[in-house]
């Protein structure tokens, strides 16, 4: 029974992921006083891209063509490993959080190689920034997750997020809040959102993630876009699972709560993007280190209880 529910949840996640992008876009449009594109625009984009041919650069090799597939494959498997709120994921085993983090690493490896394959200096620049920020974000993410693991006494994502509700006491509140802040920063950095990267900028020099996929077109670009949406979902699910640990006990309501939480997160991202400016690139590592400080503080507070 649980397995069937988990599979349904996975399918829902796969289906709803692009909607997050739609919500973010719509929120930003709202704040800017525009009507904006419809919520379902990302789906239309994907359909359109899948129906097109492709243009490849003379310079590129098979690495460029394989990168979107490897990346999407990696994040697809990862999406099957994050719990749906308080409901366990399809694939779960002890220490699965390591596999999730390293699958995202594989996605990055593929994207960066694809970017370098074009020989464009802009894409090289994006690649350089991407690896720098992710290298710093990864330890923060794992430290935050290890804190949750200590709190719940387990180290599989599904167990952590299923149990987290029981382990929340008034004492754990501040620690969890700080863990959530650390996760939010990682979420923004890894998904190339403001204040780290502006996905809608028009200047190649200032981009990080978008510039790495400049040369993709057609189905390849559809894979890239869908992969980005899934990554948004994967990292967002960790954050929402922590912030909304309520379990009513009725599956349907719990699931609905979680989905609403994801939408709220997307809305929050839209708000952040509307009222914040991008940080200077030199400031981004500092922000990540600050997130690390939050994770350490959360950890210290959790350790104090035992």
């Amino acid at each position: 029974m649980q397995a069937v529910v988990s599979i349904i949840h996975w399918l829902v996640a796969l289906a709803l992921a692009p909607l997050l992008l739609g919500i973010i876009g719509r929120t930003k449009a709202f704040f800017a006083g525009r009507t904006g594109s419809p919520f379902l625009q990302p789906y239309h984009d994907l359909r359109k891209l899948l129906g097109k041919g492709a243009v490849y650069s003379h310079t590129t090799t098979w690495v460029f063509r394989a990168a979107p597939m490897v990346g999407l494959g990696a994040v697809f498997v990862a999406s099957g490993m994050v719990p749906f709120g308080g409901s366990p994921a399809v694939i779960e085993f002890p220490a699965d959080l390591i596999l999730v983090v390293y699958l995202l690493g594989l996605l990055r490896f593929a994207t960066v190689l694809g970017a370098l394959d074009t020989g464009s200096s802009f894409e090289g620049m994006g690649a350089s920034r991407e690896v720098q920020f992710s290298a710093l974000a990864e330890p923060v993410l794992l430290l935050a997750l290890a804190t949750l693991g200590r709190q719940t006494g387990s180290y599989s994502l599904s167990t952590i997020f299923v149990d987290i509700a029981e382990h929340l006491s008034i004492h754990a509140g501040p620690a969890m809040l700080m863990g959530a802040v650390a996760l939010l920063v990682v979420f923004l950095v890894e998904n190339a959102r403001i204040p780290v990267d502006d996905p809608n900028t028009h200047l190649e020099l200032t981009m990080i993630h978008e510039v790495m996929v400049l040369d993709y077109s057609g189905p390849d670009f559809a894979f890239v876009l869908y992969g980005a949406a899934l990554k948004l979902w994967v990292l967002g699910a960790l954050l929402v699972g922590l912030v909304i640990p309520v379990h009513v006990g009725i599956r349907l309501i719990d699931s609905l709560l979680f989905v609403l939480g994801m939408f709220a997160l997307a809305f929050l991202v839209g708000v952040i993007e509307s009222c914040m400016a991008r940080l200077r690139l030199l400031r981004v590592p500092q922000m990540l280190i600050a997130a690390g400080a939050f994770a350490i503080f959360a950890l210290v507070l959790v350790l104090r209880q035992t």
Partner: protein
Amino acid sequence: MQLLFVGVGLLLASGLVCLMLSRRPRAVAIVGPAGAVAAALLGIVPALRVVGGEILPPVQWAWSVPYGSLTLALDGLSAWFLIPVLVVGGLAAIYGARYLGSYARYKALGPPWFFYNVLMASMIVLVLARNGMLFLVAWELMSLASFFLVMFEAEQESVRRAGWIYLVATHLGTAFLLALFVLLGQQAGSLDFALFGKTGWVGGRAGLLFLLAIIGFGTKAGFMPMHVWLPEAHPAAPSHVSAVMSGVMIKMGIYGIVRTLTFLGSPAAWWGWVLIAIGLTSGLLGVLFALAQHDLKRLLAYHSVENIGIIALGLGVGILGQVCGSPVLALLGFGGGLLHVLNHALFKALLFLGAGAVAHGAGTRDLDRLGGLLRRMPVTGVTFVIGAAAICGLPPLNGFVSEFLVYAGALHGIASLPVSVMLSLLAVVPGLALIGGLAVACFTKAFGIVFLGEPRTPEAAGAHEVDLSMRLPLVLLAAGCVGVGLLAPLVVGMMAPMLAAVSGVDATATGESLAGIRSLLGQVAASAVLLLAVIAFLAACRRRLLAGRPVTSAPTWDCGYAAPTARMQYTASSIAQPLIRLFDVFLRSRLDLSAPRGYFPQDASLHTDTPDVFQEHLFQPTLRAGGRLLAGLHWLQHGHVQVYVLYIALALLAALVWKLG
């Protein structure tokens, strides 16, 4: 066992034949590698049988050296370290046959093959030795053989310098090992390993022995800060020798540490902390220095320091597991560390051989002079990217499995152990993550700059794929990386007897915990298979979608600039620059910048150089101070043979007086 002895005999015999046939490069290029390959094929049989659980009786002969005896045995631990020796040694020999061939016109090939085979033979004897004297002899032979191999191109100033640094460093390490074995033998009454294990070691004494082993063996293994010889010597040697040195020989240091741990019995918690601290330092600084390098082989050499750090982390976690009596933790730690020994041997050998192929095909190892080699060297490129992904610890390859075990151990400890013990484990998780993230940065740089994009120089444009005999080892090693990654549960199952012996956990507890670990790895492997299936599915989708639609080719989008040249591509230095600046506290890079001036700048250049911090600020000042101190004794040496004879006579006389008086 007999097969192994025959193998060692073959190695020595073929080596001698090579030395005698030195004038005839053709014959040497056949005899030398043939001996190595035959020995590898012969030896792998008993090694695999012992790893599979078979127990072979030890062999003992008398040896007329004081305290020495020719005691040889093959247990699980020896066999586990023997596998990389034989596999990598054999494959690198096949590769070396063709690789060294290009030197045949102006160099005698007999000596390098002689030393190569001696190196392999000494490593085999080293892991079999069960007597301190025999062990040290094999150790010294290994060091000397590799020294002569490093000095292969001794006509170059840089190679000579690297060789001398290596010789000094390795003998400093050996000095600590001598002290270690003297202390061990003093208490045990003999230099036989069997007696070391039976002697009960207590507190401070055991700690001292542990520290001696860490310094002595750690120098060979390349622990920071004793690693300074490694980034000098490994790039200087011919590539197939670098592969053996980096993939296998430095693991002999790890073997020594693990073997010493089995003598010392139950460890103290601070041993684990020391290993974890060393592991984190080596891992982080290793990968950071690698990031700052411009020479492909030097970059790989620093990555060896990093991976040795990961192995040390695994051992440290394992020791903590022993201390708190948690078999799962002990098995995960030791399992991860020892599996990483094999994994690192596979992918590091692969990468060094790949780097050799690049140097062979394009004529340079300078990252910023390469580019676009994937089109020109397809096989080397594919295998290199597999090795790069493996060394970054990415699923579904083998590097991920061993790092995963170490992570899982640390997380298990964090979730279940009391605070006082698990604090050090808390450093392991983010530390490994940072190492992993930086490794991705480093290897996307290395592969991307060398193999992707447009060639930056005419040499790179004119590169050619290497011969079949050089491609074959690459392909086999890459297959090994994939195979160990996907068959991890089987491999870890094979490690069971050895792990039980090393971690000192009793058999039933080992069995239960190992079953858990194997099922865990089974799920990891299943996820890996799912990943491959999804990628294959996506590939099929893409093929279908693109069929019958226009697929065209155009120049790379360069923001409207119409005449991009290959030199405008991002370089290795520029990719690494932000990270290097961020970590400048550790790296102390020297920057030589002449910035563009004015509206129409003519020349601008940027040159970065990152010398080893430890060598610059620790060893050189110390050694220089030592040199000044000892300069006071200079009057002893003035070149008259008679006076030297006088010294000898006086020394002998003094010894006699001391002994008889």
